[in-house]
């Protein structure tokens, strides 16, 4: 049988094509590959499931072994967030035209260029910055590149980095930067914000996250910006754009580079498959020169008033100059950029504001309820957005107890600390249900008094 995916595997057409090119067999076409490099046996792979139904049955069997977050009540966050995904987002990114296009020219792929231009433009409004990249892989990469941009911009090689960063992200940053950038980690203050910060003129940047790994909203942005600028360094701020309907964007308090992950803006959790990274700056040529990503810009056409698009300052890139470009550029996460654009267009300014208010309020409510249930809520006086940490006698014990109630209670940061995530998807009832289960789970061992600031680890 001719495989449904391979039209020219049909023997008749194959013979016809071989005849046309004057080859006796396909084997001839492989003449360039030396015999000693040839595999002399079939690959050892499972028997195929060529019929679509059998493939579906097989996959359904495998995937049916997962318990998803519509089945369990999940309070897991820590970099991947359960926000509501509007159906229109799925509709648009599911359309074959976007899903299967790639890298055409601004003419035949005009729609892709426009959609991505609109995405960066909406992010620019949210961030109050004029330049935003076509997405890179994720917030980790965005942070690494944003730091490298500051390093290149200043010509310095030390960076002060907030300690309130996820351990996995720290791992990525070390791998990406250590060979030529010295990362100095700033301690976390007792209130959950970045602690005492000192830099000098050997520093390229201060790197801050807000809300940080504990969900704490950093309030000293302006002070840090002034500190950095006084030393001739940049302030790089990583922030989740979903907070910016209510929280001031980094540019408002003087940040030079903003970066982060856009998974919150219309992407499913997808077991970590919904990530994409943004980087934004003001429109300063020297800073723009440091972007490795593509930047799409408006360009006029022959027809007055018509908008075309193209690459801004292409010469920066590795596509233009290989290793002489800035870092590298390649396929990253464009579809999620388009999707985030759809999300922001649906939400508008009011939607973003209301969403922020709902999340702030429900986060605070959950903190109060869990405190009342006997958990020790860390950094209770800080402003929290979407996440907060609790300290309990045994993180594993409590998580196991919550599992009995069909609840994924939070991400384990260390033996005694859990990170709890609350979004607009968690109703008041959901939070009450969590609190009741926590109360029950803790009743075995009671509450604990006094605990230090935990390390920012994760379970994976």
């Amino acid at each position, binding site marked *: 049988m001719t495989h449904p995916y*391979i039209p*020219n595997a049909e023997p008749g057409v194959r013979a016809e*094509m071989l005849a046309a*090119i004057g080859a006796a067999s*396909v084997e001839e*076409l*492989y003449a*360039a*590959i030396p015999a000693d*490099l040839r*595999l002399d046996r079939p*690959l050892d*792979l*499972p028997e*195929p499931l*060529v019929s679509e139904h059998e493939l*579906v049955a097989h*996959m359904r069997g*495998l*995937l*049916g072994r*997962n318990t998803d*977050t*519509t089945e*369990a009540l999940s309070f*897991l966050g820590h970099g991947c967030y359960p926000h509501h995904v509007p159906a*229109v987002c799925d509709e*648009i990114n599911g359309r*074959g035209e976007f899903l299967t296009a790639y890298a055409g020219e601004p003419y035949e*792929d005009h729609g892709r260029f*426009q959609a991505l231009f*609109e995405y960066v433009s909406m992010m620019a409004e949210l961030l109050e910055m004029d330049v*935003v990249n076509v997405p890179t892989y*994720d917030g980790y990469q965005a942070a690494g590149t944003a730091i490298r941009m500051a390093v290149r911009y200043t010509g310095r090689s030390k960076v002060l980095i907030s300690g309130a960063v996820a351990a996995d992200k720290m791992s990525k940053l*070390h791998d990406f930067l250590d060979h030529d950038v010295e990362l100095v980690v700033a301690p976390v203050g007792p209130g959950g914000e970045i602690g005492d910060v000192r830099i000098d003129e050997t520093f390229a940047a201060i790197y801050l996250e807000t809300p940080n790994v504990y969900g704490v909203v950093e309030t000293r942005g302006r002070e840090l910006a002034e500190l950095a600028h006084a030393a001739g360094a940049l302030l790089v701020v990583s922030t989740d754009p979903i907070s910016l309907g209510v*929280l*001031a*964007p980094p540019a408002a308090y003087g940040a030079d580079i903003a970066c982060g992950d856009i998974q919150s803006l219309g992407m499913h*959790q*997808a*077991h*970590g498959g919904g990530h994409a990274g943004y980087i934004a700056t003001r429109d300063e040529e020297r800073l723009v020169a440091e972007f490795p990503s593509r*930047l799409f810009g*408006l360009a006029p056409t022959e027809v007055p008033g018509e*908008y075309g698009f193209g*690459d801004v300052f292409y010469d920066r890139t590795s596509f*233009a100059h*290989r*290793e002489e470009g800035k870092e590298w*550029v390649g396929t990253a996460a*464009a579809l999620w950029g*388009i999707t985030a654009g759809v999300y*922001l*267009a649906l939400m*508008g300014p009011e939607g973003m504001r209301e969403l922020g208010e709902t999340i*702030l309020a429900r986060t605070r409510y959950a903190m109060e309820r869990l405190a009342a249930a006997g958990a020790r809520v860390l950094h209770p006086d800080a402003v929290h957005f979407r996440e907060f940490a609790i300290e309990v006698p045994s993180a594993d014990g409590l*998580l196991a107890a919550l599992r009995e109630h069909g609840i*994924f209670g939070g*991400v384990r940061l260390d033996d005694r600390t859990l990170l709890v995530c609350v979004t607009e998807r968690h109703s008041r009832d959901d939070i009450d249900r969590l609190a009741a289960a926590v109360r029950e789970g803790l009743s075995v061992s009671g509450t604990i008094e006094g605990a230090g600031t935990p390390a920012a680890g994760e379970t*994976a």
Partner: protein
Amino acid sequence: WDEPIIFEQSRPGRRGIAVPAPGVPAVELPDTVRRAEPPRLPEMSQLHVLRHYVRLSQENLGVDQAIAVGQGTCTMKYSPKVNDRFVTDPKVAELHPLQPDDTVQGVLEIYWRLERMLAEISGMHRVSLQPASGSAAIYANIAMIRAYHASRGEGERRDQVITTMFSHPSNAACAKTAGYEVITLMPDENGYPDIEALRAAVGPRTAALMITNPEDTGIFNPRIAEFVALVHEAGGLACYDQANANGLLGVTRAADAGFDLCHFNLHKTFSTPHACGGPAAGASGVSEALAPFLPGPTVEFDGSRYHLDADRPLSVGKMRPFLGVTPNVVRAYAWIMALGAAGLREVAETAVLNNNYLMHKVLQIKGASAPWGRNRLEQVRYSWQELSEETGVHSEEIGVRAADFGVHYWTSHHPYVVPEPFTLEPTESYSKEDLDEYAAILEHVADEARRDPGLVKGAPYNQTIHRIDPSSLDDPGRWSPTWRAYTRKHLS
């Protein structure tokens, strides 16, 4: 469609979606963190947002619409729709990446099984599915190379990476980003990477050779094992960029030529959709010696259940958040399951046959050539040099005109070592009739270029917009990378 920029469709007060009200007491924010001005996002009803993006979507040529053989090196193939269904199912889409292992056994098993499949296909010992893309896999490989040499005390000394001009720019660029000096081998007179240049370059400073084969020209370097051996002799590692693996499945393997590392692009060879440029997914395969350095965590199986192993002291650590681009891992797994060993071999053979058939057709077009002869696997970098010299029409212009007929082609990466290039890769997904039609369009445009060069240079005529004036794009005073910048510079 003559679709305005989305901001031009905004009207204050409209809404595309409603958000749940708090239902609990509000939180007052301190001034230091409260946003002062609302963001100037568009305000539109739901239908209007949808309609806008549906119209934009129709202004693209994807694999689902067009004969997408023109994006050579990118392996534009059919992404089976059934595989998309698996990943939009809540059993994938609504999984959190930090759920307990026992609640994601299905996903972990797929990771585990796909790793073993790719290990078999490449001959490598283990495979990491964490990298977010092909370039990210290249970077992961370089990170492992660096860690390997460092673990042997040679990290400082081995500070050079050798690559070739017809390998993807990311091989050079990632190596540079990782701190290496880059040496690029140019093609010899037969189009192969110059082995004499390699001999000259290789030495005690060599950390690795990063090489594609067949290169982006479609030419397979038959002395590849010799290249690898030269590098090994110098104590370097050999890393195989398998972006062009589509013609090789079941035919030859990275391990067979002695490579220490390799990577695949799941969105190329293994059919996950290109998605306008990602999300993609890469797979880094390594030999047993390199396995301790793989990014973490790895997926392990104890005979009854799958679990994550993060306790790997030599690991280079995290390449990206969480385990990998799971939806694409699921799709690639399903694609291989639908084909099996015989199917993959048929993919490879058909891709090579299609390519040679299309080359046969294209080379019949007056003015088209394929430097360095006809030895090609699954793609060819062609040249319009003759046509261009005759007519003054450039390859970019021919491409724009061809798009008037509903097809696209890609020229090549810079620099244009092959003059007036165009790169075609007709994967196994296309029919003979598609290839005939594609070649006929190129022939038609080539004829037009000879008859009426101005006609071709004036294209497009049949697309959403007309010829773009790119002059502002490199001018800091005028460039407009966002609407915000545009309105400031041009509308105020």
